[in-house]
């Protein structure tokens, strides 16, 4: 049973983290695009801001790896 739950848990962690990142990036991307229409010089700032929520996906990936390695999946 554990063998089944380990990959499922890892997949769940990764997918929820990725969805959360995607949601945050969609909001930031839309706001960034609107800001760029007014001030094109903000393009670098917008790209950096867009990269900020990726921390969630990356930490999700790390937790998923931990689950797989520790759980023996």
């Amino acid at each position: 049973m554990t063998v089944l739950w380990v990959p499922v848990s890892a997949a769940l962690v990764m997918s929820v983290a990725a969805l959360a990142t995607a949601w945050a990036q969609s909001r930031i991307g839309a706001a960034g695009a609107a800001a760029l229409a007014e001030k094109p010089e903000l393009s670098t700032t917008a790209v950096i801001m867009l990269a900020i929520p990726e921390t969630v996906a990356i930490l999700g990936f790390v937790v998923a790896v931990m689950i797989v390695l520790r759980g023996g999946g």
Partner: protein
Amino acid sequence: MIVPMSRVRIMGPRDRLDETLVTLQDFGRVQLDRIPGDGDLRAAATSRRVDRDRRALRRMLDDADAAIQLLAVPAGPEAAVAPARSRLAEWARLARRCRRQAEALRAREHALADERAVLGRYQGFFDAFRVLLAELADAQHLRAYGVMLPASERARVESLADALRAELRVEVIVTSRTLQSGDIAVLIAVPVEARERMERAFGAARIAEVPLPAGYADQSLTEAAPAILARLDEIPRLVAELLDQRRVLAERWGSELRTIRASAADLLSTAAATDLSVSTAHAFVIEGWLPRADMPRLQSMIDQRLGADLVVEELARDEWHGAAAPVVLSNPRLFKPFETLTSLMPLPAYGTIDPTPFVAVGFPMLFGMILGDVGYGLMLGALAALMLWRGKGIWRSLGQISLACALFTVIFGVLFGEFFGTLGRALIGMQPILFDRENAIIAAIVAAVGIGLVHTMLGLVLGMLTSRGKPRIVVSRAVQLAMMVVIVLALLSAVQVLPSRLFGPLGMVALIGFPILLFLEGIIAPIEFFSTLSSVLSYVRIMALGTASVLLAAVANDMVGVFGSVLVGVIFALLFHLVNFAMGVFSPTIHALRLHYVEFFKQFYSPGGRPYEPFRHGEPRRASTRGIS
């Protein structure tokens, strides 16, 4: 580094203010600053005449600027001159006249371009029926109509003829052609006497006649077609004539317009400088900023040109303490290209730290750790060499940054034993020196967090240096630094790298730090400390992105054996490597920048620097903050 600045005060007889300003403008390194009026000192008063003259100068500058831009006058060597008043009036008229002529030429160009765009929409239709329309023009008893149908309604052409015949009860000629766009052009010819009933017939057939453009609306299709085609042939010639007129104007007046522009800009900036001076009945005083190293040159230039009547003195630092000196960055040649990256942030405040040298070392290193592949490093190096060979300005700086990144990518590629992912191992038996990123994920996480810890602690040390003079903040940063070290030691004892009996005492020591932080900076300090800890964890992205990169490279290599044909497999593998390389350049750039801007800079960076805008020839008040040498 941030260039040390001096605040200079220049005093002299009031009647020598103008020549002093001319000397300072020639010197071109002093940023004049407002000084408060004190006692008998007062700012130069402006009269209505002076205001009027300045408005006229501003108009002249605008006119010359607009004319230069509209006539596409190239840059030239003309410098500012000091004209007589009568000459200024002449220049103002000339600049205005050139601007009006240039605007008129540009307006005619736009009108012709618009006309060409409108008439061009009919060209396909008329070209398709060119012969037929010519024949119909001779047939006085017939009148022609044009109709356009979308490609999907091709079948309607036949039924259209039947519908029109039924409605008009006369013989109707219907011819169709398929245009390049796929639409169907339909030409309908009916006897002239049926003209009155055509509108109703079109309504019954549920189609609309192609409307002729304005200017041709009162003509028949057969009359308008040759006129429109002739006009379309004529427009390029008219445009060429206009361009020729513009070139002649630019050649005739270009040099004079550049002189007018330079002189007006100089006069306006001198006027702005005069406003910043204060004076008594007999003397004037002006103050400003300049790089400390330029102070002796300024002194000798004023001595040479203006003699001993003028006093130049450097104000002691405590006289301008707290005043915002302008910020000039100056870095060694090796670090200079990285000012491109720091320039994306606001200027650092004067007296704080220029982060460029730290970015110059940290950015390529983090980039190399993430990409870490000899093959990709060599590709990036080739790209950088191309940018250095062909590029200028910003592209050259980017080439230099890319070269540094490529170097670190190759170094870490050797340490990780990667050449296009796993290809190096298969072909030449490359072995990882540090660890295998594909499998040793825990080691990669520890290395990434370790780098994050060192980087963040460096940031805290820089924060202590920036905050000197604020002892509570310095002590708070030191306590945070110590707590981080203790927490790391506690973790090492928890995983038995250090004796496990140390875990309890170390944990206690770490806890003692919180009340000290609370005492020093209030509740915000412990919150900041947790934020700093999360910053360290954020560096784990180095591992995540690196592992993703090496796995994608491994997938690309596996493609060779998947497709049956080796050739097809190699082509797909190369394409996949190319995609991975593109992602591998973009993603580490963004994340290495983010680690600097968000995680590293927040420990010490103090924005709010004032740009350096020296008083010099050229544009009035043009900022020149970076790249002083």
